[in-house]
């Protein structure tokens, strides 16, 4: 297995500080807070706004989309899993584009076509997607199951699910149809902005960490934690599905 380091990432090897490790720890600490269990906070005031809004409100929806990504730690964990071993910048771009295409399709089609799914089930799939990526990262599919699923297809598929989740969330709160298309487009653009912000943090952190020897030592453990977090999120959502139908 080639562990070649590409030139793009090599130059910064010694410059990136411990902040990398701190960000990773912060993610895990965040997960450890049991009371932060609703992965997608649309808190009272924001929800009240979305319910009351009539007509196009591009910037509020842009903000809500960005906030959704930056504070949605299931999305963030999935991103960590996806870019964990991506050393080449163009791979990062490729995977993120696939994810973006996936969730844009279902977000737009979901809201415009009025398609809904049970939000707990969607969030459970998103939790499983985190576990899936962690399992793939520790070599589970290849070495244990003897299969090699195409990561690109998996990322696209999970992108579709994530978008469907966004669509379902948004529809729960949207009552007025005036300006809906403009608002959905704004929300989707906000999701990209938020993803850009989150991804920059994640890629920089991993890049800094990858240049240290501790990366090789703890990469396996970190991905095991991703699997744990993924199953925890999925389990929590499945409970919600069973108890609050």
């Amino acid at each position, binding site marked *: 297995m080639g562990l070649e380091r590409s030139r793009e990432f090599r130059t910064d090897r010694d410059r990136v500080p411990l902040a990398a490790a701190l960000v990773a720890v912060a993610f895990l600490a965040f997960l450890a807070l*049991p009371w932060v269990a609703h992965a997608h906070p649309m808190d009272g005031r924001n929800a009240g706004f979305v319910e009351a809004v009539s007509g196009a409100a591009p910037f509020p929806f842009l903000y809500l989309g960005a906030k959704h990504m930056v504070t949605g730690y299931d999305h963030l964990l999935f991103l960590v899993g996806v870019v964990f071993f991506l050393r080449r910048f163009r791979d990062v771009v490729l995977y993120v584009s696939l994810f973006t295409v996936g969730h844009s399709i279902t977000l737009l089609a979901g809201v415009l076509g009025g398609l809904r799914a049970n939000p707990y089930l969607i969030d459970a799939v998103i939790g499983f997607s985190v576990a899936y990526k962690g399992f793939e990262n520790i070599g589970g599919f290849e070495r244990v199951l003897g299969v090699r699923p195409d990561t690109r297809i998996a990322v696209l598929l999970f992108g579709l699910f994530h978008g469907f989740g966004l669509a379902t969330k948004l529809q729960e709160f949207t009552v007025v149809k005036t300006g809906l298309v403009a608002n959905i487009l704004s929300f989707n653009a906000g999701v990209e902005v938020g993803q850009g912000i989150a991804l920059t943090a994640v890629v920089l952190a991993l890049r800094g960490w990858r240049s240290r020897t501790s990366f090789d030592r703890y990469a396996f453990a970190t991905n095991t934690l991703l699997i744990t977090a993924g199953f925890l999120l999925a389990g929590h959502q499945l*409970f919600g599905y069973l108890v609050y139908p």
Partner: protein
Amino acid sequence: MSPAEAPQAGRTGRARILAATGLAILAAALALFGVVLPAEHRFDPLGTGKALGLLALSQERPIAAQEREYRTDTSELVLLPDEWVEYKYGLEQGASMLFSWQATATVSYDFHSQPEGAAGRFAESFEARDADHAYGSYTAPFLGIHGWYWQNKTADTVTLRLDTAGFYTSAVEFRDRVSGQHTLTDLRGEKIANP
């Protein structure tokens, strides 16, 4: 292997991967049933939520005790063409009321609140639209006077009937250059003078 395929961590044996995955599932299950579900949903199969005091986190509190006495108020307001009226209740922070009003024609209204001691005519507006009725509940976000501004924009006289019940301490009607206190009714239906 495509160039986009991610290299895996080291050369890990099957046994270690399986052990790690099993451990991950076990840890997730322990965290879920031991901590998250008790804290979030009061589902406590292992008894850890009770032992750690986590159940209190998700205790629903649909009942809010109120400090003030219960009052009711009914008013019939007549609005000549283009005339406006304001009708406000004195509510402390957290005090709530139920309301219902109906007008004989569509009026413009604005429900807003003025914090006590706020400078000038500062008011926070919570709802502004045109309607001929509205029913709902209101919980005051701060101490002050809270209520409606109604304006008759039609060419005819409009009559508006307002019914409320709640934990307010006063009711005041404001009109152009005139204002006056209203008498509230207590639990036994007796009239109570405003303080």
